[in-house]
């Protein structure tokens, strides 16, 4: 009886894990490109979800158009944040950079709360909800849409990184910023583009998230913690690790929640970064950082 539920738990774990993977991936893009962790990323994700809500229900655009607009808005927001707020202090201490990102996130969250207060919004899905049975495993349309969409995005990202000239530029800059600057790559512009790209990816995550969970201004806080957990689990800064970590986090959450205690669904995201960083700081797939004096 207990074991017969395992496939079901794995399916729903993978489904929510795909979302964590997308969010962790969008954070990793920013981290890899600029070596700055965006502590405001969770709120950008939430802002993306709200933007779709505003464009869709407020202005009456069809869902896909609203989503495209939201992605564009978040791209600009991320770009502008890096350009006008992070770039001027980029040579400063890490503390200022972390604080700046955190402060931007709180500004967004405050603005969201000021407008929507403590209301909970339930954006409707743009597709009919359905259930498919495979033996005793239930798969919902949500699972299919989320997994399919995230896999599609991952494939697109992979192609972008591996097959296009832009991907070569990105990889070169990931490897060595100074080297990239020496061969004529505009590194500050690249940083701003990556912040924009990370925010846009995050916005997509936010849209998917808002379809399965109610939308509140505090969504960003939860998202940030889950994203961190997935990132640390997979190894900080590894793109593949972020995806693997996200999926693993989703599965772990569901398994612990069912077989151990339901409270684990709430606290896995907090426990994972603590345990991973204490026991295996490089994560599952990361390399151990060597400190040079």
């Amino acid at each position: 009886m207990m074991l017969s539920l395992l496939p079901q738990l794995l399916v729903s774990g993978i489904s929510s894990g795909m979302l964590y993977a997308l969010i962790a991936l969008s954070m990793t893009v920013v981290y890899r490109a600029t070596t700055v962790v965006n502590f405001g990323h969770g709120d950008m994700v939430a802002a993306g979800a709200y933007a779709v809500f505003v464009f869709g229900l407020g202005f009456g655009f069809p869902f896909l158009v609203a989503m495209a607009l939201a992605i564009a808005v978040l791209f600009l927001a991320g770009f502008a944040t890096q350009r006008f707020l992070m770039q001027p202090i980029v040579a400063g201490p890490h503390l200022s950079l972390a604080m700046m990102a955190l402060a931007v996130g709180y500004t967004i969250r405050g603005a969201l709360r000021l407008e929507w207060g403590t209301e909970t919004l339930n954006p409707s899905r743009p597709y009919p909800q359905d259930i498919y049975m495979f033996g005793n495993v239930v798969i919902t349309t949500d699972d299919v849409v989320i997994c399919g969409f995230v896999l599609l995005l991952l494939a697109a990202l992979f192609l972008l990184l591996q097959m296009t000239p832009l991907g070569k530029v990105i990889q070169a800059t990931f490897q060595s910023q100074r080297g990239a600057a020496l061969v004529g790559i505009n590194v500050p512009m690249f940083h701003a583009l990556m912040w924009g790209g990370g925010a846009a990816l995050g916005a997509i995550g936010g849209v998917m998230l808002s379809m399965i969970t109610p939308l509140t201004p505090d969504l960003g806080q939860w998202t940030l913690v889950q994203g961190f957990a997935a990132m640390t689990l997979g190894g900080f800064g590894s793109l593949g690790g972020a995806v693997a970590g996200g999926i693993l986090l989703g599965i772990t959450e569901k398994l612990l929640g069912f077989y151990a205690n339901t409270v684990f669904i709430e606290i896995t995201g907090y426990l994972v970064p603590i345990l991973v960083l204490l026991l295996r700081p490089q994560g599952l797939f990361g390399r151990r950082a060597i400190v040079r004096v």
Partner: protein
Amino acid sequence: MSRVTRRLFWLIPLVLVPVPLLLNPYQQYVVNTALLYVPVGIGFNLVVGNLGLLAFSNVAYFGLGAYTSGVLMAHLGLPWWLTVIPAGMVGGVAGSIASIPALRGVRLFYLAIMTLAFGELMRWTYIRWEVLTGGSMGMAVPTASLFGWSLDTDRRRFYAFLAIVVLIVATTDRLLRSRFGRAFLAIKDNEIAAAAMGIPTDRYIVLAFAWGGAVVGLGGAMFAISVGHLSPISFDLTELIRQFAIIMVGGLGSLTGGIIGAVIITAAPQVFTSFPGFDELVFGLLIVLVILFLPRGLASLLARAHPAFVDRYYRD
């Protein structure tokens, strides 16, 4: 700066003594809140500013101190003054625990993430440990007393708070001026070089965390009786940005900065508490502006005005 000028700082609390006579109860409450946030800012600044470590767990010490005081009063019936020391001790222990990852070599963003998770885990504990804390509904804190003298008005609490805060400011000032403060500075500048010079960096890191946590825990004990009602919402991430705003706006790594920040950040937003979200927006914008245009905070303006306000134990 001469020793005499330093002594003049003792006049500040003396000047504050008659202040309650001029205030109405609401203003008194705001002043008390500003006062109790002074140790919160000082403790936070010690770790983040002076030691230069990105520890985000300050709200956890604050909450633990407040709940320790509240629970001891409500469940054991202890008078408030007997719960102040335990609150500080619990905060200090929590600080030492939070320093474990730092000792394991976890730094920068990694430390920030771990301590953030630690703080959130504590908030989850307040919600779940309903027997002690009343869960998300919160718990009422009994009226405080000090040696049998009831602290039932804000004016009475003001004098108790003032005494504790003066003690904390004076001892932390001594700590920062001693070899401890110099060791913190060395660790902040270059930890490996500090260790190579024979400074036991691990011990100083634990000490800074423990002292910071204890001081913040004392602030929590004051918070408990000042608001009279503890609920987990008081210790969420909005509280974290408030405390960050205190040290950033006041001035990183500056004792004066912690004090100025606490007064300004807690007194100002009382005006707009009726709009949820406004405080987060304002704190966020304030921090952005300070980082861009006044990286050393308001304390640097004071230091420019008079050398008595220069922090000798801090360098960029």
